[in-house]
């Protein structure tokens, strides 16, 4: 509540309701500043940005002439280079560093991302915008069912919730049953977890005779760590009886977008970030709202390791309508796929998210699944392995498999082999799930 007794809606009402033109002006000015900083202090960017002068960047068209930064370049700039292990990416002296994080290494060797106290506070500040928009307040007791470690996952959420004035309960060194007991015991009102783990906790709670919706007090959940298609978000809301919010971010840029109470897409945290969408083919041409493209992001105030036009490899669309919440920032739809997972199978573009949408949206009987891409006599074969809820009668498995095959065909235009496995056969993930296995590579 404000001193006038009115309900507060924004973390920063000044920035969050600025006219778009003003937001864009600030972003352009900050882009020039971060470009100058990177050229002056980062050996990697000194080389990469040769011939590009910050004062020449006057319009957003000029921005698109600056080369995109790829993750592979970050790896190369670190490997075997001093100062260890950050190499040519570091823009400050190592004595100023106060926290270490690294990427998961899912797509190759990990990239190491430290922060100074100042840059870390900025990363946390951005998450304050995200949590506040998702309704986190001083009245919340936030439980984090996650073992924090070298990855950035949930550290930002932890510190941001603390800064907001929530009561933060770290739930790391407990197993899933222990975490559920703790959520019940302390009457936690909010959770932060991956979508996969949120579903898994609901599954385990039911096995323990606890109905999350009826027996627990969780009323909001913010998800991170993996893309969350809308059917998955809705299923989590149904399982937990809570408002479930998506967020987008990563180790390299930090968190950069989140859902407001409208739950219609995610607001980019402008003008702390400059967000661009480029076309899938050339990775350079800007694309209009509504069309699928690849997201490119520039964190504008994180000076420890600057990032200029970082290719996120997330496929998404921009929403071209003002949000009823009053925020004026760009909104994007939830991630519809990752460039790394995009495949052309029998002439059809396929992303694993398409399967997730069908399974989570139409088959509550499925508790876990895995997609395999293999090859038989040079032809690609897609297999979906599913685990059904143990309460489902085995006699209905065949009919369920047939229905899943039909719905997947409608959604993807591809034919799947469907296999049902014993409950508990597939792995449960606490961080990034890895349900798509391409065995053709």
């Amino acid at each position, binding site marked *: 509540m404000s001193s006038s007794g009115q309900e507060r809606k924004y973390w*920063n*009402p*000044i*920035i969050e*309701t*600025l006219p778009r033109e*003003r937001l864009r002006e*600030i972003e352009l*000015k*900050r882009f020039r500043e971060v470009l100058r900083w990177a050229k002056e202090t980062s050996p990697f960017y000194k080389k990469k940005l040769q011939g590009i002068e910050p004062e020449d960047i006057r319009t957003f068209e000029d921005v698109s002439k600056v080369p995109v930064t790829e993750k592979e370049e970050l790896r190369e700039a670190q490997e075997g280079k001093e100062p260890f292990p950050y190499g040519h990416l570091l823009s400050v002296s190592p004595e100023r560093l106060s926290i270490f994080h690294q990427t998961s290494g899912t797509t190759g060797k990990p990239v190491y991302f430290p922060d100074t*106290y*100042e840059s870390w*506070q*900025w990363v946390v*500040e951005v998450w304050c915008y995200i949590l506040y928009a998702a309704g986190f307040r001083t009245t919340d007791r936030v439980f984090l069912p996650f073992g924090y470690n070298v990855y950035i996952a949930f550290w930002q959420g932890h510190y941001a919730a603390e800064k907001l004035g929530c009561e933060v309960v770290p739930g790391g060194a407990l197993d899933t049953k222990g975490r559920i007991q703790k959520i019940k015991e302390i009457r936690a009102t909010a959770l932060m977890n991956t979508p996969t783990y949120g579903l898994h906790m609901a599954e385990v709670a039911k096995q323990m005779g606890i109905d999350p919706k009826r027996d627990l007090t969780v009323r909001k959940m913010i998800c991170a760590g993996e893309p969350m298609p809308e059917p998955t978000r809705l299923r989590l809301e149904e399982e937990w009886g809570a408002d479930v919010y998506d967020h987008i971010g990563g180790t390299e840029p930090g968190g950069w977008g989140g859902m407001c109470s409208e739950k219609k897409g995610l607001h980019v945290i402008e*003008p*702390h970030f400059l967000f661009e969408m480029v076309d899938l083919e050339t990775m350079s041409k800007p694309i209009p709202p509504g069309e699928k493209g690849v997201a490119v992001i520039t964190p504008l*105030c994180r000076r420890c390791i600057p990032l200029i036009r970082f290719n996120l490899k997330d496929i998404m669309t921009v929403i071209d309508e003002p949000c009823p919440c*009053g925020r004026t920032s760009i909104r994007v739809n939830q991630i519809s796929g990752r460039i790394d997972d995009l495949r052309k199978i029998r002439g059809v573009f396929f992303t694993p998210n398409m399967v997730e949408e069908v399974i989570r949206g139409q088959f509550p009987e499925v508790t876990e699944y895995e997609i395999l891409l293999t090859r038989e006599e040079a032809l690609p074969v897609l297999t979906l392995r599913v685990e059904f809820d143990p309460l489902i009668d085995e006699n209905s498995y065949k009919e369920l498999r047939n229905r899943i095959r039909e719905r997947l065909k409608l959604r993807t235009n591809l034919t799947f082999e469907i296999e049902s496995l014993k409950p508990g056969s597939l792995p449960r993930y606490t961080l990034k799930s890895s349900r798509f296995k391409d065995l053709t590579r």
Partner: protein
Amino acid sequence: MQDMQFDLKAMDREIKLIEESALRLKTLGDGIEAVEKNVDAILSFVYLLKRNISDIIE
């Protein structure tokens, strides 16, 4: 901005005063880790206040 009146210039002036005061304190406490590091922390938050408030002024 949505029907909200904030005196951004006055806020900016206060932010600058905090920064100047913190820097003076750092000079006075030169050699005392407990002063230097806490002032550095204050300056990190000043940096955020500048990004959140001062930068918005046209």
